[in-house]
């Protein structure tokens, strides 16, 4: 259940940035192929924020797609599965995105 640990990291950063202000909305960016369940983050967020500056804050999670760059045909394409080949058939590629685990922004009052 690393989502609990991750959520503690999130709330720690929020508290540091909020400087005592009340946090009402938090936006996360979680890659499609990161080993994290957004639902589990949401579940943990509601619990971990209790009694903190982010208690009651709304959590918005943006799932970023997994993009790949093919070294055979040069195409940039969206990966539906982690190890899917390029539409040209090549598996010689670099994954450009899809592993994000970021806090983008928050709204405070």
């Amino acid at each position, binding site marked *: *259940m690393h989502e609990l640990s991750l959520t503690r990291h999130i709330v*720690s950063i929020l*508290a540091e940035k909020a400087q005592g202000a009340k946090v009402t909305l938090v936006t996360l960016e979680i890659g499609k192929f990161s080993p994290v369940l957004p639902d589990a983050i949401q579940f943990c967020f509601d619990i*971990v924020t209790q009694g903190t500056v982010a208690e009651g804050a709304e959590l918005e999670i943006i799932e970023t797609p997994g993009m790949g760059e093919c070294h055979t045909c040069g195409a940039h394409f969206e990966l539906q599965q982690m*190890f899917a080949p390029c539409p040209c058939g090549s598996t010689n590629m670099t994954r450009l995105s899809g592993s994000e685990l970021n806090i983008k922004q928050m*709204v*405070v009052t």
Partner: protein
Amino acid sequence: MCITCGCSDTASPRVSNLEVSQADHLSNHHSSPTHGEHEHDHVHGHHNTHDHEHTVLIEQAILSKNDRIAHHNRQWFQEHNILALNFVSSPGSGKTSLLEQTIRHFIDNIFISVIEGDQETFRDAERIQQTGCQVVPINTGAGCHLDANMLARGLEELHPPHNSLVMIENVGNLICPALFDLGEQAKVVILSTTEGEDKPLKYPHIFQASTIMILNKIDLLPHLTFDVDKCLDYARMVNPHIRIFQVSATTGAGMQSWYDWVQTQRVG
């Protein structure tokens, strides 16, 4: 419970000293005495005077604090010429047996110390201690992995000397340890032949994050349907650069190649 980040005292890790059998409960578990790092400033008593909403851009990796401490750990290892290896696997893959054999092979020539991560008990730590090397157990309690701050605390207790080898036995888990950089030189993932050969595909992150894969329990292959070639193909599909050793920690088969690799990683 800490009102800043919501962390719970009862869930915090315990770094122990087997010699005095006394757990150092980490009431100040966000601090890292090795590096003087403090993860967050508590804001108790800070009164908010804002009366309108505004957006604060953060654009920060969720694990940025862990990564910063891991960076300090890595620098500290480099400055002390210490090779640090982080062993990860499912429970029951033979991690502790592999460590025991590796320690016995090197102990006359290299100073070895071990950080032993387990959710509960000192059982594995006591096994490792019987090899004659020094060991610090970290019980993670509710946690399912070691993080960089736990390692920093463990190193404070362990005091590994210059030019030595630190082996970190992570909590048996193929998912969570993949996310948490500890500052090690390499992650070593152990897979045993009594598991499925498709584990690299089912748990790709840990195989992607690892420099080395050790396929353990090869002595049992005659009794199993485990397809070694498929397993190695899957591992390389997930991580084309992964280096693979096939061993039996019980019989010693294949272990020399692994020892040779450890030897080549040591500098000076």
